[in-house]
């Protein structure tokens, strides 16, 4: 039995000419909440579809709870909860009927968890699913996924389109369940404050590749922000005549240059000095800023800019 609940090896998926996943090798150990972040098109949803067997890799392989994804047994499917961003549920059914249907498939259905989680949301069991708000649907979906007591819960951008209150309820419900059950949660989101709040492990994907797999703190430690008076940076970036090591992004605030770099030690200050910068200082970086800098560094930009 593998120690990893998710394991991919050289996983590649191509849609026509577009490379959605590029030789992705990723191992996610059991337990904890693992956040996956990445810009749109980074390959996160494709990864989930491949893991759940709904797509077939162009090359490479992946396993879910020790089973090859393209041959998942009913037993393993029963151990995996999956909540997608649309919270797709049969709209023509009433809430109670959907719950009853789902419950019939899971012998270990936990009524207590269901009731406690659904209590975070104002969901009427007699109401048709189609009549629920997006937030209510998300809460209902999460309640059912958690009541199944999955070993692995995959949440693919579950708070997308939810208002602040619904998002708050969703996270609270998730964290409550996390304390109740032993499970691995894969949480995919663009909301950094959510990640910051719940993630124990941060996986960053870019253009189908893995670019970080560490704790959020470790990741933040990798990114540093340097503030300096440095007039020459504009021409350096334009002419690319000097290579700034680990450069991620830069912004000018109140006449001072804020430079974000990755994997640079204190000697980066010396580098700046050497290049003519003065009044140099290093500032702490929060997770959101670090991740944003990471993701925007290689983002496509129009040629004219």
């Amino acid at each position, binding site marked *: 039995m593998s120690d990893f609940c998710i394991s991919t090896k050289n996983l590649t998926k191509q849609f026509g000419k577009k490379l959605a996943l590029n030789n992705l090798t990723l191992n996610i150990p059991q337990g904890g909440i693992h956040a996956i972040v990445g810009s749109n098109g980074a390959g996160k949803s494709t990864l989930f579809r491949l893991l759940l067997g*709904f797509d077939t890799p162009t090359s490479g392989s992946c396993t879910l709870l020790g089973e090859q994804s393209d041959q998942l047994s009913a037993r393993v499917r029963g151990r995996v909860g999956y909540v997608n961003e649309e919270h*797709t549920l049969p709209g023509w059914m009433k809430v109670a009927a959907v719950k009853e249907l789902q419950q019939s498939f899971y012998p270990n259905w936990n009524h207590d968890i269901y009731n406690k989680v659904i209590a975070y949301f104002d969901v009427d069991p007699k109401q048709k699913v189609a009549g629920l708000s997006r937030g209510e649907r998300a809460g209902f979906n999460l309640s059912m996924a958690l009541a199944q007591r999955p070993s692995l819960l995959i949440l693919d951008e579950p708070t997308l389109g939810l208002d602040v209150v619904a998002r708050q309820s969703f996270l609270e419900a998730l964290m409550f369940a996390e304390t109740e059950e032993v499970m691995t949660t894969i949480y995919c989101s663009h909301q950094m404050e959510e990640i910051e709040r719940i993630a124990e492990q941060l996986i960053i994907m870019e253009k189908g590749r893995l670019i970080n797999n560490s704790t959020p703190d470790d990741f933040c430690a990798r990114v540093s922000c340097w503030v300096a008076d440095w007039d020459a940076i504009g021409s350096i970036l334009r002419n690319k005549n000097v290579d700034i090591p680990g450069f991620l992004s830069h912004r000018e605030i109140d006449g001072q240059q804020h430079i974000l770099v990755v994997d640079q030690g204190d000697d980066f200050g010396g580098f700046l000095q050497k290049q003519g910068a003065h009044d140099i200082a290093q500032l702490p970086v929060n997770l959101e800023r670090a991740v944003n800098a990471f993701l925007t560094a290689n983002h496509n930009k129009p040629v004219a800019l």
Partner: protein
Amino acid sequence: MLALLKTEFLHYRKWAIGLLALQAMAWAIVLKLNEYTDASAFDNEITQILSLFGGFIFGVVQMVLITRKNHWAFLLQRPLNSRDIYFAITAASTLHIFIAFPLVWLAVVAGFDLFTNTVVDMRHYYMAPYLMMYSVATYLIGNLVVLNASRAAILTGFGLLTLHNDLPQFTWLKFLILALVIIILLYLNIKSFKADRFQPLKSVSGIVLMAIPMQVILVFFLTMSTALFYDIPQTLMGTHPEQHPTEGSFEYWRNIEEDKRIAYLLKDSDMDNKTLFSRQTELADKDTIATYHSAFNRKNQLNFRDNQWFLSDEDSRTVWVFSHDEMMLQGSDNFTGEHVGWLGQQGFLDKLNLATDADRFITVPSMIKNQFIVTDKLIFQVDFANKQLSVKLMMTGGEYLIGRPEFKEHFVALVTNKQTYLFAAQTFLNEFELAATSYQLPHPVALENLSGLESYRMADGFLLIYRGQDYYGFDKAGAEILYAHANGDVEKIHSVRFNKQNTPEFIQHFDYLISPAIYTLRGVIRNSFQSSELSKQSNDAVLTRPWSSTILITIILLQVSAAIVVLILARRFRLNHGKTVLWVLMSLVVGIPSLLSFLLLNKRA
């Protein structure tokens, strides 16, 4: 699984009930408008068409809704086998189909049976399971089209259904084949109902069952394609052989003016008086007599196949409908519907309990001209005025009628498997006794070589032209003129061989050229499933046709080329060794249709 079945049933139950109500209303209106409700009211093709399209559309729509990206994940991401999930959905849909299609039919038939004196045989009830199975089959085809990785699966589905539509005349065989079609479709759907449904089927059985029916349909389309690359361009250029038949060909002779045809046939004859003879035929009454087999009614056949099944006597205002259960005609009053008696092989009976086995017909007859009861061995004539039944004709010694009698202005023609009989029309129609043959004309060639027979009524007999594209053997067209004298003698006047072909050989036999295997397979299957007397070409004739070396070499080249192309493509598509061998072998045997099905069923890696 049961919970899923229940849920899926609840999903569409209102639609099914709505369709049931609509049909019930339609039936109520139809039955209200029909003053005279006889068994023909059951013969409603709309019900069949509704079942065909209803089942298919339901199958497509349901699966399209289910397979939407996240809905698909919601359905499959459960601790259930995908096979069980599909079974639950199909079982629920079968219930919907039962409500939507056969139930109303069943209710109507039962209503007739219980509350009227209309003849309702057990076979009328068979229509309900038939409609049910038919709708389920088309529903499964709809499913397959959506579920399978290849949209061309529609060709497979309808290829299978064609098998059932084309062939069986016997009810049990029709049910058996339909059941087989359903089992195959169910198997293919279960195989296609998988998490990643965009992956082609991997199992050998899946590939073969997808490919072969598809290839049968592809042969049809390829054959039709001659219209695109040959018929239409040739017609537009004004050079099509149909517009300008080649002189010396069978088609050339068929295209010349009717009056000149005899003269054309006789042009090389050394007859002394052929000009006079030709002129006589120009003035003669001409008729065409069919020499092809037509199906007789079969016991317990599904009622939509019924043909000429009742007699009506206007004087007594009675109608006599054939009952398959009793194998006799049941009489009833046209207006009140009350029973008025029975008509069996030995005549009229007042009560059913008076009938003996000898009264019951052995085979199901057809009724003609409101007075003849015809089976393939016997013709009876009914005299309603005197309540009598007389035997008009009786076949013996392995001879049987290949079709119903043809009533012409001056004569009645009967074609059997051995000869053609001509009777004087007035005597045949008006004298209630065994018919006296005026002319008895043994077929000059085997019946399967004949494509038609034309008669010219002369002063002292009949001139007959026997003709056929294969008159002297396969692709050896010919015609023969015989003269049947009034004294019964039959004289051969002249025979002609048409040595020139009007259409290029590769166009004429394009269906064989593109796949001899499927051509032969279809012929053999058709012969196996049909009653032997309906076979247009025997298996021997199909299997031993002397094809020209040009055709044979072209076939070999096409099939080998198809196999080579498949081999190259299989490597590009990264098929494994086993599948490559399978497709190459299939292409070697089946040829171009196999290559096309390979392209339709496989995706480039």
